């Protein structure tokens, strides 16, 4: 008798399950249908990092080339190139000059660098395929010269597509995030 009751209870549980899926059947979709709709929470999305333009000139980066982001990046995906101009420009390897507190066997004999050297950023590259989006670079930048882009739709077919030239992207935003909403006719 008890077993019969248990079985009936079990059968009832099956009916309950059916009822739940049956109800869900008639509820609207939950998925966001990508090319036609887009998600609306990209404001907090972390895309690849991008350079922040200086306040007075949207074409120049704010970066002061302090090398901190390069150093802290766990996956070594950032690489900078720069050259010095003006006084002290010929003083040698700019990389060594720029981190005077680092004493390497090769820099010990060099004359102390001048206090201030004018520098120009030649390139700022990010190997996005290595980036773990940890945010350490962004947080360690003393002048807030980098930030996460909102570019959620970066796609590529080769590895080179993810070797991003951030300086060029700053000057010429190739894939600025589209505003959410229907896709503009192409």
């Amino acid at each position, binding site marked *: 008798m008890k077993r019969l009751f248990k079985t009936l209870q079990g059968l009832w549980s099956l009916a309950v399950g*059916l009822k739940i*899926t049956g109800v869900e059947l008639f509820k609207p979709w939950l998925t966001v*249908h990508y090319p036609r709709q887009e998600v609306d929470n990209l404001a907090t999305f972390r895309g690849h990092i991008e350079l922040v333009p200086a306040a007075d000139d949207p074409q120049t980066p704010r970066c002061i080339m302090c090398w901190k982001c390069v150093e802290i990046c766990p996956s070594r995906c950032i690489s900078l190139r720069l050259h010095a101009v003006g006084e002290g420009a010929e003083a040698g390897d700019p990389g060594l000059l720029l981190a005077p507190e680092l004493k390497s066997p090769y820099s010990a004999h060099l004359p102390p660098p001048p206090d201030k050297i004018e520098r120009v950023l030649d390139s700022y590259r990010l190997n996005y395929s290595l980036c773990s989006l940890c945010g350490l670079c962004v947080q360690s930048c003393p002048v807030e010269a980098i930030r996460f882009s909102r570019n959620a739709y970066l796609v590529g077919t080769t590895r080179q597509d993810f070797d991003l030239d951030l300086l060029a992207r700053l000057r010429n935003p190739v894939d600025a995030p589209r505003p959410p909403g229907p896709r503009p006719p192409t």
Partner: protein
Amino acid sequence: MMAELTALLTHPLAQMVLALAAILAFLGVNGLVLLYAERKVAGFIQRRPGPYEVGPHGLLQPFADAGKLMSKQLVAPMGADRLLFWLAPLVSLAPVVVCFLPIPFSPLLTGMDVNLGLLLILAFSGLNTLALCLAGWGSNSKYSLLGAARAVAQSVAYEIPLLLAVLAVAFQVGSLDLSAIAATQAKGLLSWNVFVQPLAFAVFFISAVAETNRAPFDLPEAESELTAGFHTEYSGMGFGIFFLAEYSYMVVVCAVATALFLGGWDGPLVPGPWWFLGKVFALVFALMWFRWTFPRVRFDQLLNVCWKWLIPLGLANLVATALLVKWVG
């Protein structure tokens, strides 16, 4: 001329050939429709759109899939018994055509009016087990072999309650002819056998789910245990035909259930065949609904359900029916 043509067309042989052609066409279309329907049902239950990109609302998706399956290379695993391996999908699909012959879509629209229609269907659908067995054996794969072993045990066990349920109805009507059985229920809703023989209907339907290897009784292909069970090694159309066969068997059992229990073509307003098809697909929908709701049962539980519940219930029902028929009718 006209008379000769009519004579030719009404000749039983010609009728059968025509019916066979129509059935094959129906099977193909049915496969496509069910493929689409299953995905849409799954999608809606899971609150997503299902196929959507190919054609309007994804309507062309089954065609794309069919194209994909047909254009894929046919690979037989190393060490497989090639003859058995390729024979298995065919053995699985071929009998299903015969199973469709006696199904009464309406009093007129019946492929072949045989008075042992039910027996024919039961006999030929049993062949499917052989196909699964061949597939499992021929694949030279351990997963397939385990799947095949399960398939055989399951089909053999569930054929018994299926038969018991069918027999109860056959006793009551006194015929094994599906058209005749359906015809006795054409007197309105309450004459449907589902109300006369509810227990037989339940036993029949549960066994049918097991017999077609549908979830929650899809043990032969339990993919979390046996990757894909008996059809693990099949690619391209080998798999496609199994798939088609599975969907066709679904329709067969649902059609039989409709004819036996749900009044066949009986229904107001629209013509009979539409009612018949509607009932069949409603049952198919229920099968899909089960699949997307329940977990899979375990093997010994499956057999326990069969031996401890369905067969005793089926037997009791049969005996009761027999006694009633003896005394009342």
